């Protein structure tokens, strides 16, 4: 019995699943991270992911090719980001309430539009989604082949986004401006750079990432759109940002760790399901997210200007 629980770790399927489950979380966590680095908490994440999932899927269902589907999802995400930024950055409205409002709006609009396009379908139709890539030689490797080299292009995109975001945040001048907007907006303004513009752009880019994360679910994982399919992944991403101390590399680590535990949970459920009700396994991701925030709480250093609206010429 104990051996069985250990054997899960030797199973290539488990590791491959870990990588797949991590993908939407990577997109979403990096997206939230960029927003918060600029000083804006984006609680619209859950709804924006729903919108991304719906739009990406629908675009492909209605005849667009897969990359175009991702593009549409990103565009819709950026639009919701723009709405969020107009409220929170330009008018200084509460970031908490705005975010919840955006989540309600984005998800209800997505469901409304989905029902309009597909009035009644008991079994959601599937699309011709991203297929696993066959990489010569590498895909055929024992163990490492199925774990690392039999994924879809969308999966590799998620992992590619990590170094890209690291470069954006840590090396690019735009990233420096984002960080200053979140730490010391007065100093940024003193440099002659418009804080509001930087924050708006950051929220738009971040929201586009979130939407792509949602699209991953409908275009590379489930290949169909379900109601309530985001299932708290957005909120988990917010916890992961804190766990990662607002650093992209640690965000990747957090997402992988989290996905690993989730993948393990599903398999352990099959072994222990007889004596532990399955609901407790399903609770694990949420419990772990809370736990992760507690662990991170001690070393956490929030971006100094997070949640604080900036107004030109006003001191804080």
């Amino acid at each position, binding site marked *: 019995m104990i051996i069985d629980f250990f054997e899960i770790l030797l199973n290539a399927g488990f590791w491959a699943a870990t990588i797949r489950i991590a993908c939407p979380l990577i997109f979403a966590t990096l997206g939230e991270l960029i927003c918060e680095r600029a000083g804006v908490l984006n609680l619209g994440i859950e709804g924006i992911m729903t919108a991304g999932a719906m739009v990406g899927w629908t675009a492909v269902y209605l005849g667009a090719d897969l990359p175009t589907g991702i593009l549409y999802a990103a565009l819709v995400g950026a639009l919701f980001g723009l709405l969020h930024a107009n409220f929170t950055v330009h008018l200084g409205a509460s970031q908490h309430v705005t975010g919840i409002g955006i989540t309600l709006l984005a998800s209800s609009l997505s469901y409304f539009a989905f029902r309009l396009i597909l009035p009644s379908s008991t079994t959601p139709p599937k699309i011709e989604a991203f297929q696993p890539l066959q990489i010569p030689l590498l895909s055929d490797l024992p163990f490492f082949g199925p774990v690392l080299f039999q994924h879809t292009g969308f999966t590799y995109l998620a992992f590619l986004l990590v170094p890209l975001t690291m470069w954006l945040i840590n090396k690019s001048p735009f990233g420096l401006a984002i960080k200053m907007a979140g730490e010391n907006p007065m100093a940024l303004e003193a440099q002659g750079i418009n804080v509001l513009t930087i924050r708006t752009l950051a929220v738009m880019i971040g929201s586009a990432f979130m939407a792509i994360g949602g699209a991953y679910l409908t275009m590379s994982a489930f290949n169909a759109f379900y109601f309530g399919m985001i299932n708290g992944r957005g909120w988990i991403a917010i916890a992961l940002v804190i766990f990662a101390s607002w650093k992209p590399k640690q965000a990747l680590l957090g997402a992988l760790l989290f996905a690993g535990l989730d993948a393990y949970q599903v398999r352990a459920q099959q072994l222990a399901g007889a004596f532990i009700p399955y609901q407790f396994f399903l*609770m694990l991701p949420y*419990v772990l997210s809370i736990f992760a925030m507690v662990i991170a709480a001690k070393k956490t250093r929030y971006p100094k200007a997070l949640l604080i609206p900036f107004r030109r010429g006003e001191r804080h």
Partner: protein
Amino acid sequence: MRLEARDHVPEWLTFLVPILAIFFSLFVAATLLIIADAPPLESFYYLIKGAFGSKNAIAETGARATPLILTGLAAGIAFRAKFWNIGAEGQLYAGAIAVTVVGTGAINLPSTLMIPFLFLVGALAGAVAILPSVILKQLFKVDEVVTTLLMNFIIILFVSFVLDGPLKDPMSMGWPQAASIVDSGVLPQIMERTRLHFGFIVAIVTALMIWFILGKTTFGFKIRAVGYNSSAAYHSGHSVIKTMILVACISGGLAGLAGVTETAGLKGYLTLDLSPGFGYTGIAVAMLAALNPIGIVFSAIFLATIYVGADSMSRAMNVPTYLADVVVAVTVLSVLISLVLTQYKFYFKSNSK
């Protein structure tokens, strides 16, 4: 365009806010109706008819408003203290589990005692459900937004577990539902042969009580002080932590009451679809009322009208029911924007400084 802060927001302007917000959300709804190929005016007619067109419709609207008043109060009181409780959905279910545990046969008292007892138990359970988030916030400074949100998922999975096991009604023929609340605990109808029950009155009385506490007691003043500026409240000698914990528990308790009205009033037993998101809609209710307890009663009735009306409208006009959720979301955002805008005067020409 330039904004300048107002020193004082005139009364008529604060009154205008919710009205403008409602008109704007109806305008968005009309746009969506046109997209959905349904004539807006005819659709609105069906919506009003569905919500108020008959005795049954009115009762249904009142029954739907009941939990929304309570979750609206839950969000309202917490948001006043800037404690972001987004977990009313979970706290509602906690209240529902608790009344199921004590109310399905374990305890049986005469109605006059049983019903108050169930409300007390439900409120306590709601307060207990918010405690982990409060404790984590006070001890480790863990953001309560995320913990209350995540607790919703945890508690709903727990409901699924109890309905599969310990609280499953053996007579339910396999459906995941609990046994019925004992007769003495069932909230009586207040309109004959309809689903409008005593919970509606409880909700309104609760709103009056919260209005009194917030407006007329020192505790109400402390809540506002904490919400306005917690460090100033601290320096003026208020025990900020104590106030915060108490506010959170009251907020959770109010959401727990909604669990009681739904279990013992509307349905009669606990199921997994007891609440179609009343906890989240409560945030919209509170926002539309600008967190005012009396206003919350009216905004809950308004949003209940939208939901109940949209049900029959969508049947008549073949429009997705999700339209109601869009209206609710737009309402939240337009109230928010108008609240912010009333704080400022506008200058459309930028005058030089």
